């Protein structure tokens, strides 16, 4: 649940950690999120296809990884903050059966032209880096 203002901009300091997000990734959740993001590539819903390609199971699509990253920063920043930039470097696939874990901290902040913070984040599928990158949030 997102509260209206879980964190106040004035209280944010560089280096501060965000609460870790954990989500169980399953065959069912992968197919659900692939359809909800209109990614119809068989590697996100067809077990025969992924096994022929040498994967142990279905894996999360990129749009869904971005969705979890947005949830990770929004749950902390609240509904006043606006997501203005998201840069994600892709790592290893996040497979069905993995726990997706997203960690991050405030890497920079400023007040011009609007109040903003930059968050460095890292997402793991079990203990392997699935994605890493930076997100910028702005406050009106």
């Amino acid at each position, binding site marked *: 649940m997102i509260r*209206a203002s879980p964190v106040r901009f004035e209280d944010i300091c560089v280096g501060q950690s965000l609460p870790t997000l954990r989500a169980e990734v399953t065959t069912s959740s992968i197919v659900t999120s692939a359809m909800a993001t209109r990614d119809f590539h068989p590697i996100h819903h067809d077990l025969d296809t992924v096994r022929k390609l040498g994967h142990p199971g279905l894996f999360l699509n990129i749009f*869904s990884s971005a969705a979890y990253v947005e949830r990770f920063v929004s749950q902390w920043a609240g*509904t006043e903050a606006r*997501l203005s930039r998201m840069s994600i470097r892709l790592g290893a696939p996040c497979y069905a059966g993995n726990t997706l874990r997203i960690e991050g901290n405030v890497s920079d902040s400023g007040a011009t032209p609007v109040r903003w913070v930059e968050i460095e984040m890292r997402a793991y599928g079990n203990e392997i880096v699935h994605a890493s990158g930076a997100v910028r949030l702005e406050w009106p």
Partner: protein
Amino acid sequence: MNAQIGDWLSRIQARIDQPYARVLACDPVNSSMIRHWCEAHGVDDPRYRVGVGECTDAQLAPPSMLQVWLQPGPSGWRPEGSAQVDATEIIRLFSEGGYTGLVGVNVDQEFVRYLHAGERLYSVSTLVLVSDRKSTGLGDGYFFTVRQDVFAQDDEKVAVLHFRQLCYLPKESS
């Protein structure tokens, strides 16, 4: 053989900085797809909800849904008036040269503003960069970057996306 190799690569290089025609979103930004997205990813944010009997125009869409609005249907369907070919064509050109492996490298999205229900989007994609042939852990290949400019119905730019991918020559499996 060399002429053939030169052919597909020169066709790719000829596409650099040449914007493709506009691709129209299949649907306007809408509350049903927003709710499915929120449910699928465990997002509970009042900005993305609309109450029973409420007008949906004030409802915002999650910024990371950007590409969802511009996805074709499972059969590749695009609405009437939309270009059928965009910069994803580059992947097909690479596979003509044998570079059939494809992996995403990084995605950089800038959101000018949040979208709201009812907006109709279109996008213009442009191949902006193709690397020299590189040796990678997956196999030899080319990194390439596609920029996607996303506009609202009145030609207002609402987002810019850069997607860098690698097309590679799969190593022989023993």
